[in-house]
């Protein structure tokens, strides 16, 4: 079930998130916690850098799917980090996006809805090697559902599941994107 986003809605959600950050700055200013304000500013910059990097991978479907994820009605929150030098992933955009969408839908359905479920996706760009590492913390109610997905989804020309570990309160899945240079 995919939501159609228009500009007004995107800007409304974005404004909401930014005003939450401004709330933190404003509140700590009022308490005279200037060091904390500076920390918050650095956190904001870091988060923005990750989003800017994600947006520069020339994979617009992936970027918008991931950046809009937290604004859909979800039972888990997603955090993104992008490590390494930017690469052009345009050739793999559709396939990676649909794999991620699929996988995250499974996770979304397998977790305990009212728990604090948090997923960090670390996109690691090394020379000629791209990895997506999904690091989950929270409560998984239906481990088997996720395991079934991971075991049956192994075959793809672009995506290779390198490693996974699924527990009830933790999960880590490492996926490799087989870019042209790696397929050689």
């Amino acid at each position, binding site marked *: 079930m995919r939501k159609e986003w228009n500009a007004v809605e995107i800007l409304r959600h974005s404004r909401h998130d930014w*005003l939450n950050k401004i709330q933190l700055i404003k509140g700590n200013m009022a308490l005279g916690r200037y060091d904390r304000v500076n920390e918050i500013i650095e956190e904001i910059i870091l988060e923005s850098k990750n989003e800017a990097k994600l947006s520069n991978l020339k994979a617009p479907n992936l970027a918008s799917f991931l950046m809009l994820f937290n604004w859909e009605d979800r039972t888990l929150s997603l955090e993104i980090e992008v490590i390494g030098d930017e690469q052009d992933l345009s050739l793999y955009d559709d396939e990676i996006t649909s794999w991620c969408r699929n996988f995250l839908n499974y996770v979304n359905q397998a977790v305990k809805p009212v728990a604090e479920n948090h997923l960090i996706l670390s996109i690691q760009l090394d020379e000629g090697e791209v990895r997506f590492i999904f690091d989950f913390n929270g409560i998984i109610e239906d481990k088997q559902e996720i395991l079934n997905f991971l075991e049956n989804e192994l075959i793809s020309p672009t995506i290779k599941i390198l490693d996974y570990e699924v527990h009830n309160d933790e999960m880590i899945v490492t996926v490799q994107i087989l870019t042209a240079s790696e397929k050689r």
Partner: protein
Amino acid sequence: MSRKKLLIVDDQYGIRILLNEVFQKEGYETYQASNGVQALEIVEQNRPDLVLLDMKIPGMDGIEILKRLKEFDQSIEVFIMTAYGELDMIQQAKDLGARTHFAKPFDIDEIREAVKAQVPLEA
């Protein structure tokens, strides 16, 4: 004499610790919850006098939390925290018995004074 109890419900960690610090300093006994289930558990176990409730929380949303909390005990006061301009939600929350609302980003002084006026600390 027992201290007045205040429950802070917000999914954002930074907001919780900020409000917690402000009201602990004022002399309230404070509790924190980051989601609806936690909030309702604390309400049942500790019966706070006032709840500061963020309306945008993943999982169980603010309206649902407010409903259940008022079902448990109608006399618990609730201040809601919303984004600016969520007029429908504010009206709905007031119909369910929320006392007042603060639009984020709110002023710490204002919310402090409002809480103290609603739930005075006995000397």
